């Protein structure tokens, strides 16, 4: 398969993740959709890495995975803290900073 097909899949996955981040209101699902966006980026990185026959893109994909793991760690910690304080798990309701 030519590289263009992989790039198309990566664009579709990234877009679906972006739609989820905009439209969903459960912060857990928003984190999952962020994972989708990062994975779309990863697929593009690895496709370009294959295109040039160069490993740099794969290293960058590994770093992106690390960053995603950190983001999951902190995000889930925040969700657990919100749950502990008996606040609603809903990004429309958590508007204290908005005033």
């Amino acid at each position, binding site marked *: 398969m030519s*590289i263009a097909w992989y790039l198309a899949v990566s664009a579709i996955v*990234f877009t679906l993740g*972006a739609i989820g981040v905009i439209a969903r209101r459960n912060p857990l*699902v928003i984190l999952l959709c962020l994972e989708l966006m990062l994975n779309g980026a990863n*697929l593009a990185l690895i496709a370009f*890495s*294959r295109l040039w026959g160069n490993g740099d893109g794969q290293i960058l994909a590994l*770093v992106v995975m690390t960053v995603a793991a950190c983001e*999951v760690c902190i995000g889930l910690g925040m969700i657990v803290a919100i749950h502990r304080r008996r606040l609603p798990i*809903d990004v429309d309701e958590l508007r204290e900073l908005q005033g």
Partner: protein
Amino acid sequence: MSAVLFFGAGAGAIAGAIGVVLLRDPFYSVLALVGHLVCLAVLFLLLRAEFVAAVQVVVYAGAVMVLYVFVVAYVGGEGDRFELGQLSERVRSHGFPSSRMRIGGAVLGGALMIELLIAMLGTGLHGIGGHGAGYSPGPRTFGTPAYIGKLLLTRFLVAFEVASFLLLIAAVGAVVLARRRGGLEGEEAGEALAPLGLAPPREAGTMAEGVGPALAAAPRHAEALPAPAAGAPGGPRRKPLP
């Protein structure tokens, strides 16, 4: 053969992504994401990124998703019920524009996808239409663990160390965020539990638990609070701000 694998895995990845976005129950969203990640790992294998595919399956679909499943089991069901009840209530009372939000999200997403496709496929790079650089299988060739390890420990040593330090910071941050502590948390718990006339359970992270046994004999919040406001609905709802 590779075309069949590509279309199968690509369709699986896109279907998994759609499932993550559309399914109502967060638990099913997590399962859809696991399927998506496995399909993506197949795509990585087709792109000769063997080590990254293995890491994707082991770390992502294994460890990170287990973390998600735990948190969904701890939090998710309640959040979902809350969302469902509140959505219908909102639509009935003053027509909250959640459907408008969805349409806006879909329109924005469509625009983003067109832009991305133009940016990636319309570059005029000849190589994009091809199959990539030459590849000869071997123990140290492109994408094998030996190749990635050599790159990580020579050219990308700084990035490797910074990534490990970032992981350390995230671990410490998660512990700080999720530990039980006193202060506002105990006050909020007392406030939220007051309508039921219950003292907070001992393991719910009260202030007495946070500061140690010295203050454990002090009176509980729930006893000192006034009677609950009339008409306040049950559940973890916050009082409206003045």
